[in-house]
């Protein structure tokens, strides 16, 4: 999926441009938003090259290879579910093995939901999704200490709008390498 490759590209860009987006709180200060590569899915091709070029210095070649399952960083879920669908097991297996082979690498798994259901329930559901992903990664060799879960619930949709086409893109867990 091109969309997924785009996530890599934009994700790596985010890594470079700085995960340390703190503050921005209070009295009108407009500090940077810690933006997920939200709009990536809706853009056209062409970002793969940028992703590959940007890579190197951070997580090593494997992570940056667009042909590798490691380039896929988003797991999608069914409504109100934290069950990992079969099509994502190979990808998570690859990430789990990669983490096992690179114990110095740190990963944040972000859990997200669609807008339906209460915000507070969705915060807990997002955590469940992140936890489900973490569990599979650990089963495949990653150390629990390498992985941190963060739930954003429905607060950071990948796609704006409403309806199943949008919701299916927002019910997700994103793998964000820290290093």
């Amino acid at each position, binding site marked *: 999926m091109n969309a997924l490759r785009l996530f890599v590209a934009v994700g790596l860009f985010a890594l470079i441009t700085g995960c340390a987006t703190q503050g921005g*709180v*209070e009295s009108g*200060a407009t500090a940077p938003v810690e933006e997920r590569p939200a709009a990536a899915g809706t853009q056209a091709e062409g970002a793969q090259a940028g992703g590959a070029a940007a890579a190197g210095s951070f997580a090593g070649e494997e992570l940056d290879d667009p042909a590798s399952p490691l380039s896929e960083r988003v797991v999608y879920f069914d409504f109100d579910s934290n069950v990992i669908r079969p099509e994502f097991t190979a990808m998570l297996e690859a990430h789990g093995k990669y983490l096992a082979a690179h114990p110095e690498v740190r990963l944040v798994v972000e859990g997200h939901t669609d807008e339906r259901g209460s*915000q*507070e*329930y969705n915060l*807990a559901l997002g955590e469940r999704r992140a936890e489900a992903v973490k569990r599979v990664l650990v089963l495949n060799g990653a150390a629990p200490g390498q992985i941190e879960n963060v739930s954003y619930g429905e607060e*950071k949709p990948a796609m704006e709008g409403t309806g199943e086409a*949008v919701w299916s893109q927002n019910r997700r867990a994103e793998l964000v390498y820290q290093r």
Partner: protein
Amino acid sequence: MMLKPNLFRLLVLPAVLALAMIGRAPAQPITIEIAGATEAAIPIAVVPFHVLGNAAPPQDVAAIIAGNLQRSGMFEPLASSDMLSRPARMEDVQFAQWRALGVDYLVIGSIQPHAGGSYQLRFELLDVYKNSRLQAKAYRVPATALRDLAHNISDLIYEAITGDPGAFNTKILYVTESRDGDKRRYQLIHADADGERPQALLTSSHPIMSPAWSPDRQQVAYVSFEGGRAEVWVQPVYTNQRPVPRRKVAAFPGINSSPAWAPDGRRLALTLSRNGNADIYVLDVDTGRLTQVTRHWAIDTSPVWAPDGRSILFMSERGGGAQIYRVPVTGGEPERLTFTGRYNADPAISPDGKRLAMVHRTDGGDRIAVLDLETGQLRVLTEGPLDEHPSFAPNGAMLLYASSRGGASRLATVSLHGRADLPLALSHGNARSPAWSPR
């Protein structure tokens, strides 16, 4: 509430209305829309107040009062364009004329500017069928207090007619999300109960959720993601101190969410997942002492306190789907309260503890419903498709909630007697997580 049987009105009103329609201006944008069971609404006329002197007051007090009464769902104010006269004193009222218009009650008054920027305001509440005066009061206030005075008078009128206290002179909190270029901006907003005079208590580039009033209205607890994940903060609502003396009160591993103040104003019920799973806890804000209330592998969240402070209502999916449960604060076996439908969430309890409001999922989407805890009767109040986060007015007669349509979220109020949209003074952004202040 006193409803007058009024055959006369039924016969005459259509004719008067037909006449009035002819002279009506072209349709204007409507900001208030009544969509519920409004046949029980009490007809009232709030006549625009006479302005004595030449300086026009900065607020249209009569319009604020009429808007308040309409939003309550209890009243149906007559459009000022349908009024045949505009009396300012009882001596000038032709009661027969108002009876012909089908009006049960009449509010009239005058406003006079004084030196130094203050205003003298006088109003009367009249019973059209008894030709009598129910209320008459005079005030002198600074211009900045005119809006507060309008809310005050609205409360007086509401109570004089319905016998129940009004909730117009109260505040609301909510969260807005807007776009600033490709950046998102989140604000915790404080406003009048009618949505006017919005002020930002917090502006952040990270999500804000679930603001909760302390019982004395002096503090707000909320969830902020500024630390990279959901953590609970407390800050004063009214302060001139800069920076605002806010403090993080819950930052345990996992999620820290859903703060709800205990009636004692010292403790917060919270959802924490510090043990790997979302459970309900009680935190003593000053001592930091933490007590776990629920312990279950299912998701437990959205705690609210029963008014007596002895039990906590919360949402849990322990029965399979999301339902509302009640558990003693001291812990113990939760008791399930909702049995209709497969998904009931976002509990809110009425100030008298007799009613439970919630998000109730139907085939038509997520709607706000109210369960009578004594009779077990469930009433669905809104139409969906994506309504959430109900919050009771301090008089228990209305609910404030967030309503999403087409990806945009706005706030609305619903009366337990009728329905009305709350027009918010919002120029941009989505409004969510509303919380109505205590009295």
